[in-house]
Structures are given as C-alpha cells and as structure tokens.
C-alpha cells in the first residue's frame, strides 16, 4: 500500500511540477473561467433580476465543468509528447497508481482554479460566499473529485485520439450529469438552506459517485493503457 501511494505521489508530483513550470493550463483555465463568469453576469444580469441568484449555483458549476475539460485534456496530452505515456506503461507502476496520481494532480489543478474564481463569482453575482466557505469547500472537493476521476479515465481512453479535445467532453458530460446535479443542488442549498431540504441525500450521492468512478478508474486504467 505504501509503495502504491508513493508511486501515485511520484506521478502526481511530476504532473504538478510540469504545470508549475509553464502554468499553461492554470492560466488558460483561469482566463476562461473569468471570461465565462463575466459573460454570464452580463447575460443574466443578477443586479436587476433576483431570480438569477437561484441559477447562480448552476452557472458556477457549468463553468467548473468546462474548466475541468481544459485541465483534463492537458493531463494526457502531456504524456503523448515524446511518447511518454509508453514510459509509464513500460514502467513497474501499475495502472491504478497512474490513475490515482493523475486524478489527484487534476483534482488539485481544478480546485485551484475554482477557489480563485469563487471570489470573482461572488462579486459578479453579488453573493456573499465567505461565511459559507467551509461547506462550499466540501462540495467543491467532492464535486471536483467526481470530474477528475471520470475525466482521468476517459482522458486515458482518448489520449491517442486525434479528436481528443472533442471526444473527452462528449464522454465526460453525460456521465458526470448525476454529480453535476448533486453539486448544483448542494451549492444552492448552501446559499439558500430553505430551498434544498435533502442535503444529506445529495452528499451521499456525490460520495457514492466518487467511490464508484474511482474504483472503476482503478480497475480499468491498466486495461485502457495497455489495450492494443
């Protein structure tokens, strides 16, 4: 177990270090999230339209889902340069350690973008998020793990596909729909506790989703990487 975790950390550390070197994903994802939040705030005008605040949670998670695609697409694109993916397949590291390492690195990167864009979302939509930061962080952590675990598995599937930028969202969006609904409901419930009553059911669903897709990724990634 210790060895498995060490291998996973080695891979995660390599991905995070690569990203810190050029910050190409972070810069692109942050710029994208800011641009979309700005467009949403103009399109829905939360200052004159109070109903928009009810939609705010949904809009926020739509942005985060798009941001996830940017981060996840880059995760395996980094491995296809110089055929580095083959070096992982030929190494004594199992697919489950590769999955865990890459999922963790993706989770950190997506979470960083989410946390930086949250204050901007608060300003654009005039929402006070600071007192609710604790519960929000919990939802972000669980929801982001859902996107990262599904996206890492499908990122490996589409890694060598010419149309991977298109294929990944096509596979990711429908599968992440239950997690997205849970995240939106929980975020809405945090901002307006009376609107959503079944908070614990949504939390259980999100945790269940994370566990199921993490196990699937752990079981499938070896096959996905060595198929062919």
């Amino acid at each position, binding site marked *: 177990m210790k*060895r498995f975790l*060490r*291998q996973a950390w*080695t891979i995660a550390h*390599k991905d995070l*270090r*690569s*990203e810190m*070197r*050029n910050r190409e994903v972070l810069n692109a994802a942050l710029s994208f999230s800011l641009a979309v939040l700005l467009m949403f705030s103009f399109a829905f005008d939360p200052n004159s339209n109070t109903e928009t605040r009810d939609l705010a949670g949904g809009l926020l998670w739509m942005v985060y889902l798009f941001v996830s695609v940017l981060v996840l697409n880059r995760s395996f694109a*980094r491995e296809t*340069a*110089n*055929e*580095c993916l*083959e*070096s*992982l*397949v*030929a*190494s*004594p*590291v*199992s697919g489950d350690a590769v999955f865990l390492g890459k999922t963790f690195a993706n989770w950190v990167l997506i979470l960083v973008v989410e946390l930086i864009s949250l204050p901007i979302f608060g300003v654009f939509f005039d929402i006070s998020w600071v007192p609710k930061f604790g519960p929000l962080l919990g939802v972000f952590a669980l929801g982001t793990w859902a996107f990262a675990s599904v996206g890492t598995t499908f990122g490996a599937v589409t890694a060598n596909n010419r149309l991977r930028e298109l294929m990944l969202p096509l596979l990711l969006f429908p599968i992440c729909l239950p997690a997205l609904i849970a995240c939106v409901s929980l975020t809405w419930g945090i901002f307006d506790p009376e609107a959503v009553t079944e908070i614990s059911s949504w939390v259980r669903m999100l945790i269940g989703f994370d566990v199921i897709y993490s196990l699937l990724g752990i079981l499938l990634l070896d096959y996905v990487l*060595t198929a*062919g």
Partner: protein
Amino acid sequence: MSEPAILARGVTKYFGDFPALRRIDLEVKPGCVLALLGRNGAGKTTFLRMLAGLTSPTDGEISLPSVGADFVSVRRHIGVVGHGQWIYDDLSAEENLRFFASLYEVDNIERKLAEWLEKVGLKRFRHSRVSEFSRGMRQRLAIARAFLHEPLLLLLDEPWTALDDRAMHLLSSLVAEARNTGRTVVICSHQLQEALELADEIALLDRGRIGFRGPNDDDLRNAPDSLYERIA
C-alpha cells in the same frame, strides 16, 4: 543451464489484416547482445515493443524467464530507448531522471543521478529544461534514463539516432559494459555497421519472419551487405 533471457514461441502480430510478425521463434541467452536487423517495416519495432510489454502478440507466447516472473519484477528490469525518447519537455534533465529513478525505485538516487548526468555529458545542463535541448542531447538523456536503473534487459530501438561521434562511442561502451556484467541487450537498427560492431548474434527480420539467425562473425562484419543477400 541458465534460463533464456528472451523466449518467443510462434509470435504473430496482426495490425488489422496486415501481418507485422509471422510465427517468430527466438531464444536469447542472458548476457547476449542481439542485433535485430531488417529494412523498414520488417517488424523490428513491433517485436521490441512486445518485449517491453507495450503490445501483446495476436498469437504465440513471449516471455522473459531470467528477467522476472511477475509484472513488477519484469518491468523493473527492462530499460528501453525507443523512437519517442520518453522524456518530459517541461522538466529539467535532472527532474526527468529523478522521476524515472523514483518509478523504478532506484537506490542512492542522488549518486546515480550525478553519475549518469556526468556520463552522458549533461551535468552542466542538469537544471535546464529538456525543451531547450538539441535532438542529440535529448537522445543522450534518453540513454541515461534507460540505463539508470541497471536493467537486466536493454531494448534499444535505433539508439544512434542524432548522436554525434562521442555519444556513439559512449553508447558502444555502455552496451559493452552491459554485456560484460551479464545483461542482455537487443538492438534494433537498419544501420548494419554500428549494430554488427556490438552484436554477438544477429537476427534478420524480413517481412515479419526471421530470415537469418546466427552468430556475428568476421565475414559479416567485413561485408555487412551480404546479410541481405543471404536471405534473398
């Protein structure tokens, strides 16, 4: 008698309807340097990829009995220099080697990193990003990556690509050193002269079949082109 390092029985590989390898039978003893020669499309790289565990045969069996029995031990003892170099552009030379040393659980990492960066002449560039390297420097780093964990089986696919004379000499001495320490080396190339200088044995692949297999002798070394005539 020791177990063979490589044992292939009836290995066949199809890509769609195209047979890349056709019933390959091959046994290689530990400590042997085998030159796997052949023209473009002969199936050399496909066979090497199978040995590295990157693809599996459509039919037949391939095993590495003296290298290891299970997944982890086999892969830990294989070193590969392939077409793609397998190095990360965003990381420095030292970070690349450190990453692979961690994956292969190399002991005394700091000492080994310093030793290999010195050997391949990249010590001065240890903190430079690989994206700033020339093709030859990248190939030298790829060689260090492949040899770093002291593998029992070395798989070298066109290892002379982009190397200058000094680096070619270094590679030759590394292969000789590997042979002297009982390690097995498979070199895929269509550069006959260089391969024949290092090899103990020759296997010539021709359209997915082994057309010739035998020891490397003076006749071959003196007239490498006669190899292709032998199977014609």
